[in-house]
C-alpha cells in the first residue's frame, strides 16, 4: 500500500484539546482555541440553563474539535483520491500562460507542491501572509491533475492515449467555463476556510505561470453531521454512490490504481474525470416519489435497490412486478450504469454545488461529478456512453462541464508532484 496515514480521522472526544495539540506543532494555539471554546460553551450552557432551556448541549459533550486532522501529503500516491471525502472542495483548473517552458512548469509544480506540503501539515506556506488560517488543516488534501497542455509542455511522449476531451455525448451542453484545463488542483478539507486559504495560496504561486480557467466549489454534509462512511446524497435527495468500491479495498486497487485491471498510465498514478452536471430541481419538483425512485431504481429512503431492502443489497434486474414489468426499469440509472463488463468500473468522489440562480430562477444546483479510474477510455467512457443513450435521469440532468486529467503519483518530502515527467 501507500504508507499514507490519516491521523485523527475520528473527531477527538473529550480531551480534544490535548489530542489535537499533539497532532500539530502549534500546541499553544490549538489548545488555547479549544479551551476558549470550552469556556464559551460552558458560559452559554449556564445562561441557557438559567433561562429554563433544556436544549443546551452539555459542556462536556459538545466541544469536539476536529480541525487538527491531518492527511499526509507525501506518499507514493497522491492524497484526496481514496481519502474519505472531506466536506468541502474546490476544483480549480488552470491554463498555462502561453509559452510556459518545461522549466517553468517544473518551477510551478515545485512551488505548489511545497505549498501543499506545508498547508496539509497544518503549517503556513512559505510567504503565507495569512498564516494563521493554515493552522486548522481539517484533513486538507491537495490533489494535482495534469491536462493535455501541461503534459505536452513537459514531455508529450508521456501523455496517455486517453488524455483528451471525452467524446461528445448527445446529452452534453458543455460550456468552456467548466471544461478542460492544463492543471487541476482539487482542494478538499472539512473546513471551508481552510479550502479558501489553500486555494488562495496556491493561486498566488500560480499566477506567474498560469491563469485560472475555472473554479468549482462543492460540498457534502459537514464533518460530524453523519457517521463517517455514509454514502452521500445529492441535491435530488438521492443516495449517490452506493456501488462505489470501498476505500482501501482490492476493488480500489484495481479500479483506481490499475493493480490487476487496466493499467494506469504511470505506476501509482490514475486519472480523474470531472463533469459538472446541472440538476433541474424545478422539473424534479414535478415528479412524485414513485417516479423519482423508478428513475434511479433505488429507494429514496435508504438507497436500497427497488428489489431489496438495504442499501448494499444486490439489485435483481430479473425481478418482475405483478404486471410483468421489470421492478428496476431497463432505463433506470442503476440498470444503465451497471456494466456487463466488470472492468468498466469507476471510483466516484462527487460533491454537490449550489450556485446563485440565474435571472428569474430559484436554483442553479447540481453535482460536480468526480471519478477516478486507471483508464478513462476503458472504464469511464463506456459507462457514460450507455447513460447518454438511455437513462431516465437525463430528463432532469444536463452535463454542462467536462474535463479529463492525468493524475500523477505522489512525491516524497523534498520532491514535487509530477517529478517523474522530468526524469
Amino acid at each position, binding site marked *: 500500500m501507500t504508507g499514507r496515514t490519516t491521523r485523527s480521522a475520528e473527531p477527538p472526544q473529550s480531551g480534544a484539546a490535548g489530542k489535537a495539540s499533539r497532532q500539530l506543532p502549534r500546541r499553544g494555539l490549538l489548545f488555547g482555541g479549544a479551551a476558549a471554546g470550552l469556556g464559551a460553551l460552558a458560559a452559554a450552557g449556564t445562561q441557557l440553563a438559567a433561562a429554563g432551556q433544556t436544549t443546551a448541549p452539555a459542556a462536556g459533550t459538545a466541544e469536539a474539535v476536529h480541525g487538527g486532522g491531518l492527511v499526509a501529503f507525501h506518499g507514493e500516491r497522491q492524497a484526496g483520491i481514496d481519502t474519505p471525502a472531506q466536506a468541502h472542495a474546490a476544483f480549480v483548473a488552470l491554463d498555462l500562460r502561453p509559452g510556459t517552458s518545461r522549466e517553468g512548469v*517544473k518551477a510551478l509544480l*515545485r512551488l505548489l507542491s511545497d505549498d501543499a506540503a*506545508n498547508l496539509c501539515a497544518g503549517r503556513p506556506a512559505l510567504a503565507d501572509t495569512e*498564516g494563521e488560517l493554515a493552522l486548522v488543516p481539517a484533513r486538507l488534501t491537495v490533489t494535482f491533475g495534469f491536462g493535455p497542455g501541461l503534459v505536452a509542455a513537459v514531455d508529450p511522449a508521456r501523455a496517455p492515449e486517453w488524455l483528451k476531451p471525452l467524446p461528445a455525448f448527445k446529452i452534453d451542453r458543455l460550456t468552456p467555463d467548466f471544461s478542460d484545463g492544463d492543471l487541476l488542483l482539487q482542494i478538499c478539507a472539512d473546513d471551508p476556510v481552510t479550502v479558501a486559504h489553500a486555494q488562495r495560496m496556491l493561486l498566488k504561486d500560480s499566477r506567474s505561470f498560469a491563469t485560472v480557467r475555472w473554479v468549482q466549489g462543492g460540498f457534502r454534509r459537514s464533518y460530524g453531521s453523519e457517521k463517517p462512511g455514509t454514502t452521500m446524497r445529492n441535491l435530488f435527495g438521492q443516495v449517490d454512490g452506493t456501488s462505489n468500491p470501498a476505500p482501501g479495498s482490492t476493488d480500489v486497487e484495481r479500479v483506481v490504481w490499475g493493480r490487476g485491471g487496466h493499467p494506469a498510465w504511470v505506476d501509482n498514478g490514475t486519472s480523474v474525470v470531472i463533469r459538472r452536471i446541472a440538476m433541474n430541481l424545478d422539473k424534479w419538483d414535478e415528479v412524485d416519489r414513485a417516479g423519482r425512485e423508478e428513475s434511479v431504481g433505488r429507494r429514496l429512503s435508504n438507497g436500497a435497490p427497488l428489489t431489496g431492502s438495504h442499501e448494499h443489497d444486490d439489485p435483481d434486474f430479473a425481478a418482475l412486478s405483478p404486471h410483468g414489468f421489470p421492478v428496476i426499469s431497463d432505463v433506470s440509472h442503476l440498470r444503465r450504469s451497471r456494466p456487463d463488463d466488470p472492468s468498466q468500473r469507476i471510483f466516484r468522489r462527487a460533491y454537490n454545488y449550489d450556485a446563485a440562480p440565474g435571472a428569474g430562477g430559484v436554483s442553479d444546483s447540481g453535482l460536480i461529478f468526480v471519478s477516478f479510474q486507471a483508464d478513462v477510455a476503458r472504464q469511464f467512457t463506456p459507462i457514460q456512453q450507455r447513460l447518454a443513450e438511455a437513462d431516465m435521469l437525463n430528463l432532469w440532468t444536463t452535463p454542462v462541464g467536462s474535463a479529463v486529467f492525468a493524475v500523477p503519483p505522489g512525491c516524497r518530502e523534498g520532491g514535487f508532484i509530477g517529478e517523474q515527467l522530468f526524469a
Partner: protein
Amino acid sequence: MNMNFTYPALTVLAAAALALSGCAPSAPASAPSATDAAASPAAAADGLAVSQPWVKAAASGMTGAFGVIKNTTGADITVTGASTPAARMAELHETVAGTSGGMQMRAKEGGFVIPAGGELKLEPGANHVMLMGLTGPVKAGDEITLTLELAGGGTFSFTALAKDFRGANENYVEGGAGMTGHQPSSGSTASPSPSANK
C-alpha cells in the same frame, strides 16, 4: 558599518505594509516549529539551521530574503553580513522607529546577534536581508543561494525559494537623497553606489 546608509520609509504603502505585518509579527514564522518544517528547504551548519527560507521574486533592482535562522548552540552567534550570486550586494537590514515618527529601514549596525538557542526571524516589514543590484531576474520558483557571514569568519549557506509576493513594498530614501524602489516590479535598477556604503 554602513552607518550612513539609512532609509526612512516614506510612503503610506510602506506604513500599511508595516502595520499589517505588525498585526501578526511572528505568527506565520513561529506558528510551525522551525525544526518541524521538514518539507521546506533547510540547511544546517556551524550551529545554525534555517527554515522557511524564501526570496521575493523581482524582475530587477532590489529585493528581500526572509526565513528563520535558528542558533542551535549554547553560545550567541553574530551574523555580520550576507552575499548571494543573485545580487551584487546584500545587506542585513532592520526596521526601527525613525525620528520623524515613521519607520525606517536601515543596515543593521554590528549585524544580527542570534542568542544561544534562539532564532532570528527575517520577515517582510521587519528584519530581512536586502539584495541590491540583482544580477538578473529572480523568478518565482528560482532557488537562490544565500550566504551569511558570521563573526569569527565562518559562513552559513542555504538556498531560498523565490516566491511571487506582493508585499514587502517599502520604499526608501537612500541617505536622504535619491529614491530607489525596493519594489521589484518598479523596474528600478538603481542600486546603492559602492561609495555610499563605505
